[in-house]
Each structure stands twice: as structure tokens, then as C-alpha cells.
């Protein structure tokens, strides 16, 4: 069959011709040209800091914009950004920032105190729909202005003294205020650019597109293709441009984490956003130098619906919490160096140490359950454990289901729901026990504790304690010294853990694969990267 032979031969030939074309990998060419290739999780929704809410967007925005204060990636202590220095009043409520003379926008305009005031004004426009507006509520009257109880913006505690001096008055002494300034809701925006593309409170105007975007960060936006990549290139107008080693960064959306790992292995990425669980052991065994894990400022926990009759008894909730073998879960199920959690606030949150909450004590758990009227689990109704559909959540739920059955003799039924359906169920209290995760907005116990106040939008457990509310809303904000404030926070957390409307399970870890050429990465609990510190070493290649 000459025809068939010809056809098959030509097919093979064309495949071979195309196959031979695979040239130099991204990382090899990137190392030479100073181009960093990063896996960045989900596709960014937007690049407007007053609209976005996710980590992938945060990663890109910190390359494009810079706040008054940055963080030292190794200690997370504040270091100068646009502000060279600042003074804090004795009562901790007045901040005076001195802006550097040489701070420039990517179009060459000077960055002024007025730029900060204007973008904070924009962040507080309710019609913009900024979901992180609450980050600015530390400022005096910002919350009232956002809720339209105060109509004059000059009543908000922001005062432009001159182009290089900005004064901020806070509602309460907020020791973590400097931390907040590095969050994208506090970044300055270029007013003329935004107004060129529409009213300032219009969502999704075209100012964030490449070519339009004007930023003040070490990089400027040059490309954005949905589902493909975002490209940022070194900004020559940046005040510290001479210390920026990278020439460009390419951010790739990597929703499919198995594909992301393959991209890393074939030299297409310098760093991944995460690592698939089943690959952790392989890398630990064969290439431990490529695998980076570090505790992360987040807690994996279960909410308990305290309005369900048999779960309204705190002895039952404590029994459930005390009969989970967290060591076994992190060792055999999650396997990513997670820390077992016995408190809600992750360990050592800038000097805060949570109170001793509880321990793994099945014996004591059985006693508590018996005291609550369910000796050996007798008469305990089958309880629903709800989680959003995911292999990882399912594995943990199965393990805990077994532990509760073995230790307490109680039965739990597992239910998984699509993410949005799940959120709806939890929001409406249609659950018994539900999986949850919480990532802190800043390094301070407050971001883990203020959610459990009676009217906290993220409480969703029906739990309420007058003492807890008083500590978090009244006493801690007025505390003058850090130690006093932490003591009140500890008391609040002890109250929370005593009542146990939530079951902490483990502290998250950030996990990534890192190419040996990438230098300057410092591990920290925020997984915070200062891009201007990063560099690429062209002599380093992936091991075979």
C-alpha cells in the first residue's frame, strides 16, 4: 500500500519536524535575560487594587505599585517605601509620613501626598464596590464615611500637609497600622490616568490595561493576556531602580496544579504557586533543595453551628475538638509540613503567643461527651460535616469522621458541595459542622479574632459572647502598650477556645518549587516577596 505508507510516513515526519523545534526553555533564556517566570495560581480578575480580592492579584500589584511603607521580607518589620521616615504620636493615633523627593510614577510624574489621599478617598467610595474598604477603617471616620454617615471627606483623618508630607489620624491606636500600608488597598493610584478612562468610581474602566496603567512600583505593566500571562518590565522611573536586578517578570495563571508542576519540571517556571500533595514525597526524596515549605498565616478549621441543638453544648464541641489526632492528619493526610493547630491564631504572630487552648485528649473528650448526655456516643444524632468539593478536604473529613467514630462513638455524614453552593449553605446556617479556612490580612492576632464578634460578618457559627465582644471591640483597641493589648487578645482567644465554636485543625504552609537560579527569596509567614530583592543566576540549572 504505497499510499498508506506515504500517509503514515508523512504524518510521522511532520510530527518529528515539529518536535525538533522545542528550543531553549523559559528558565534558561530567562536566567540570561533577567526574566523571572512565576506560576501565579488563578487567573487575575482585574488589576485595579480597589476591586481585586485575591492573592494572585496581590502578587502582581506589589510589582506595579508601592505603598508608603514596605516590609522586610525576613522579619516583616516595616521598612521605608515611598515614605523615607515617619513619626508616631505618643498616643499612637497620629502618624506623620515624609515622602521621598525622588518617588516617580512610571510616566515620570512625581508621587505626592495628594496621590495617597486621593486614592484612599477612591477606596472609600461605596459605589465602587471595594470589598477591602474595611482595611482603611483604622483611619478616623473612614468607616463612617464609607457608610455615608459622614459626607465630608475632610472629616476623615487624612491630611495633606504638603506634597511630601501626609498626616493620618487613626480612630484608635492601631499597632499594626504600618503593616496595613503595604496592602494594596493603601497603594497610591495615578489620578489623571484613572480620570482619563472614566469616573473614579467606575468598575472595570480601561485604565488597568497595558499601555494605560501608570504605577509607582519597581515594574510597569506591559502585557496582559487572559489565561495566558501578565508581563511586567522594569520601571526606569522607580526611585530605587538601580537596585532592581530583574528586567521583567512573567506571571502565568496556573489553576491546574499538576500542569504547573510539569511546567516547572520542564523548565518553564522559576517558581510554582503551590505543589501537588502527591509530589511532595517525591521532591523530598529526590530533590529536597527545590522544595520550599514554610508556615503560612492561615488556619484550616471547622465551624460548628452552635444553633443546632446537640451542638449548642460547649462540652460536645470541646469533645469533638479534643478527639482529633492532628499529628496524624498532618503526617499522613496533608503531608505538607503543616503545623497541628490547637489555637486559632498561628504561632508567633509578631510577638503574640496564643493561650494554651486544649490538647489531644480522647479520654477527657469521652468524659465531656458523657457529661453532655451522650455516654459512648449513645443518642448522639448523626451530624452533617459539610465541605466544598475537593480531594484534599475530603481526605481530611474522612480521617476526622473515623477518629470521631473510634474515639467518641458518634456518627458523622460527609457532604460535599460546589464552592458557591457551599458558601450559600454556610452563610444561611444550613450546616452542622463545616470546613473553613482563614488567611490573615496582616500579621496581628486581630485579623484572626475580630471575626468572632457577635456581628462579625465572618462568624457564621451563631456563637456570641458579651465578654469576647467587649475585649475585642472596646478594650483591646484602647490599650496603650503592645503587651497590654496582647494580654487582652489572649484573654479573648482563651474565651473563644473555651467555648469552641470552631475546631482548629492545622496551620497552613506555603509550598513552592523554586529553581536553583532564583536568589533573594526569603521565607516568611505571609509568603511575601519583595521583587526588587530577587535576582537570577545564569550559571544555575535544574538538576536532571
Amino acid at each position, binding site marked *: 500500500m504505497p499510499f498508506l505508507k506515504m500517509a503514515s510516513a508523512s504524518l510521522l515526519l511532520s510530527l518529528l519536524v515539529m518536535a525538533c523545534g*522545542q528550543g531553549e526553555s523559559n528558565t534558561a533564556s530567562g536566567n540570561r535575560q533577567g526574566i523571572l517566570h512565576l506560576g501565579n495560581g488563578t487567573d487575575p480578575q482585574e488589576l485595579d487594587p480597589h476591586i481585586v480580592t485575591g492573592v494572585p492579584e496581590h502578587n502582581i500589584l506589589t510589582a506595579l505599585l508601592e505603598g508608603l511603607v514596605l516590609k522586610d521580607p525576613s522579619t516583616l518589620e516595616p521598612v521605608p517605601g515611598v515614605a523615607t521616615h515617619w513619626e508616631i504620636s505618643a498616643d499612637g493615633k497620629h502618624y506623620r509620613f515624609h515622602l521621598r523627593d525622588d518617588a516617580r510614577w512610571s510616566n515620570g510624574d512625581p508621587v505626592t501626598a495628594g496621590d495617597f489621599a486621593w486614592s484612599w478617598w477612591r477606596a472609600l467610595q*461605596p459605589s465602587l464596590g471595594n470589598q477591602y474598604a474595611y482595611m482603611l477603617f483604622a483611619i478616623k471616620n473612614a468607616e463612617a464615611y464609607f457608610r455615608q454617615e459622614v459626607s465630608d471627606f475632610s472629616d476623615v483623618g487624612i491630611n495633606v500637609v504638603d506634597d511630601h508630607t501626609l498626616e493620618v489620624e487613626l480612630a484608635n491606636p492601631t499597632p499594626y497600622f504600618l503593616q496595613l500600608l503595604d496592602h494594596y488597598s493603601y497603594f497610591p493610584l495615578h489620578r489623571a490616568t484613572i480620570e482619563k478612562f472614566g469616573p473614579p468610581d467606575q468598575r472595570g474602566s480601561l485604565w488597568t490595561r497595558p499601555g494605560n496603567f501608570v504605577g509607582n512600583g519597581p515594574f510597569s505593566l506591559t502585557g496582559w493576556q487572559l489565561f495566558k500571562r501578565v508581563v511586567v518590565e522594569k520601571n526606569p522611573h522607580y526611585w530605587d531602580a538601580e537596585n532592581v536586578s530583574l528586567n521583567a517578570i512573567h506571571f502565568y495563571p496556573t*489553576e491546574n496544579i499538576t500542569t504547573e508542576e510539569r511546567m516547572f519540571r520542564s523548565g518553564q517556571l522559576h517558581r510554582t504557586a503551590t505543589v501537588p500533595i502527591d509530589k511532595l514525597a517525591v521532591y523530598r526524596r529526590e530533590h529536597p533543595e527545590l522544595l520550599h515549605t514554610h508556615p503560612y498565616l492561615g488556619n484550616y478549621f471547622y465551624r460548628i453551628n452552635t444553633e443546632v441543638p446537640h451542638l449548642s453544648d460547649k462540652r460536645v464541641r470541646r469533645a469533638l475538638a479534643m478527639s482529633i489526632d492532628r499529628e496524624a492528619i498532618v503526617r499522613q493526610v496533608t503531608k505538607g509540613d503543616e503545623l497541628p493547630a490547637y489555637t486559632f491564631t498561628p504561632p508567633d504572630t509578631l510577638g503574640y503567643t496564643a493561650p494554651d487552648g486544649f490538647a489531644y485528649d480522647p479520654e477527657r473528650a469521652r468524659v465531656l461527651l458523657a457529661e453532655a448526655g451522650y455516654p459512648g456516643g449513645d443518642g448522639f444524632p448523626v451530624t452533617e460535616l459539610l465541605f466544598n468539593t475537593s480531594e484534599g478536604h475530603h481526605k481530611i473529613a474522612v480521617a476526622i469522621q473515623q477518629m470521631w467514630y473510634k474515639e467518641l462513638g458518634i456518627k458523622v455524614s460527609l457532604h460535599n458541595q460546589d464552592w*458557591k453552593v457551599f458558601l450559600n449553605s454556610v452563610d444561611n446556617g444550613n450546616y452542622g459542622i463545616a470546613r473553613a479556612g482563614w488567611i490573615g490580612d496582616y500579621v496581628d492576632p486581630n485579623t484572626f479574632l475580630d471575626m468572632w464578634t457577635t456581628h462579625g460578618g465572618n462568624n457564621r457559627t451563631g456563637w456570641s459572647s458579651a465578654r469576647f465582644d467587649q475585649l475585642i471591640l472596646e478594650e483591646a483597641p484602647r490599650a496603650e502598650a503592645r503587651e497590654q493589648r496582647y494580654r487582652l487578645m489572649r484573654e479573648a482567644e482563651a474565651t473563644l477556645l473555651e467555648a469552641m465554636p470552631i475546631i482548629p485543625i492545622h496551620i497552613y504552609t506555603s509550598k513552592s518549587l523554586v529553581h536553583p537560579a532564583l536568589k533573594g527569596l526569603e521565607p516568611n509567614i505571609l509568603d511575601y516577596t519583595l521583587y526588587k530583592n530577587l535576582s537570577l543566576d545564569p550559571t544555575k540549572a535544574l538538576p536532571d
Partner: protein
Amino acid sequence: MLRFILSRLLQAIPVLLVVITATFLLVRCAPGGPFSAEKAVPPEVVRALEAQYRLDQPIWQQYLSYLGDLARGEFGPSFRYPGRTVNELIAGGLPITAELAFYAMLVAILIGVCAGVIAALRPNTPQDYLPMSAAMLGICMPSFLMGPLLVLVFGIWLEWLPVSGWGELAGDKILPAITLGTGYAAYIARLSRGGMLEVMSQDYIRTARAKGLPERVVVLKHALRGGLIPVVAFLGPAFAGLLSGSFVVETIFQIPGLGRFYVQAAFNRDYTMILGTTVFFATLIVLFNLLADIIAVWINPKMRHQLSRSR
């Protein structure tokens, strides 16, 4: 013929209306809205967002204004991507998905027809069993298995081809096209084998052989044309299927095509995007089926005759 086409196009309008209405109502019935998130959204923000996307209006009014937008060819703004319209997203993803579907189709035809013809020439011999078993395997093997398998062999072990991307690195279109194409290649192989078997037993093939024509000419010139009629009829719906079914392959290979938008939109409750892509795909499928019908009438004299008589 023109009347046939026109009447089919008119029939398509109520079909599309039903699709739009059903989708519109179904997405609204699904629990959870486009703005629900793990971190509670303040009521002020929810109100502002709902006003911006007209979600504060009664549902019938939303439906009517949506139909009005559609009539003007506008699918509305996306909820997931605040700065983008659904039209813009479809226009961005479609060329990529269409290109992928086109290459996949080429792969499917090339492999499918070759395998089918080889099998049909010696029915019930190893030369038949081998390609047909492979075809069966191709039909059975889902692309979420085939894709990673090909990546493992050609991308990771042999290092011949890139493991992901589209139009970024040389050769990155090969594995996605093969992954998407093989399932269809298997169908085409079975169809062309059947078609060829039927044709090869016809009198005119015997005549051709009796004239002493070489086997190559008999197969390529005489048999192939008739034997591939079932394949041609299959191509229209297959292409529509490739376009709307490329989601898995696009996810595995990180291809910025339309299929990913479609599924992500459902997870994100991106109402306008779900509706937009559904309406778009529904229109596409209606058109491709119409096209397949026209071709079927075109190449089948019996049907052509019937059509003109019914007039």
C-alpha cells in the same frame, strides 16, 4: 434548497429562545451568587455591585433587558472579569479554540481515515483487528488520561515537546491537538471502515478490478469517495463538539481558549458569561448541524430528489 435553508434557520429561533430562557432561569436557581466569597462582603458593597449589574431589578425585567442586549449582539459585562465584556472574552478565546479544534480535526481525519481504510482492506485479519482495537481504545480513553500520558512521554521523558502553552514555544500545539483529536480519530476510523467495507463489495469496484486497475487506484480513486460519505456527515457535528468540548484539553495544557471560560463561568456564577457562552455554542451547534444537513442533501442524490419533489 434556499427555502430548505431558510426554513431551518427560522426553526432555529425558537430553539435558541428556549435555550436562553432555560439557561437564564437555571443559573438564577443555583444557590450562591457571583459576589459570594469566603470573606463576608459588606452589605454596602453588595448593594453597589448589584446595582451595577442590574441584579437589583425584578427578574423579569432583567430577562427582558438581557434579550434586548442580545438583539443588539451584546452579551453584557462579565462578573468575574470586571473590566471585560463577554463579547471581548469570547472574541479572545474563540480563535484559539477554533485553531485547536481545526488541528484536532486534521489529526482525527488523518489517523482515522488511514486506520479505517487499512482495516477495511483485509476485514477480520490482524490488519483489521489491530487498528480497530486501537480505535476502541481511543474512544474509551478520556482526554484527561490521554493528555497527561502524552505529556509524560513526549514532554517529560523524551523532552521533545513543551508540556503546556499555546503559541509560546515551538511545537506546543502538537500534544493538545493529538489529545483532542484521537477520540474523534477513533470514531472516524470506525465510520470509514464501515463505509469502505460497504463500498468495496459493490459491483463497480469489481468492475474496476476486472479492468485490471492496480489496487491503489481502485482504493484511492474509486472506493474512497463513496466510502467516506458517513465520515463527511459526521464532520459538522464533530467540529461543533470539538469547539465546545475542548475544556479538558485546554485545562490540561493551560490553553487560553473558550472552553475554560465556559466551565469557570459556571463555577464562578458569572451569569452573563454562562449565558453568553451557552447562547454562542447553541448557535454554533445549530449552524453546524444545518451545514451537515446541507452537505448530506448535496452529496446524496436521493435526498436532493425528495426535496425538490416535496416542493
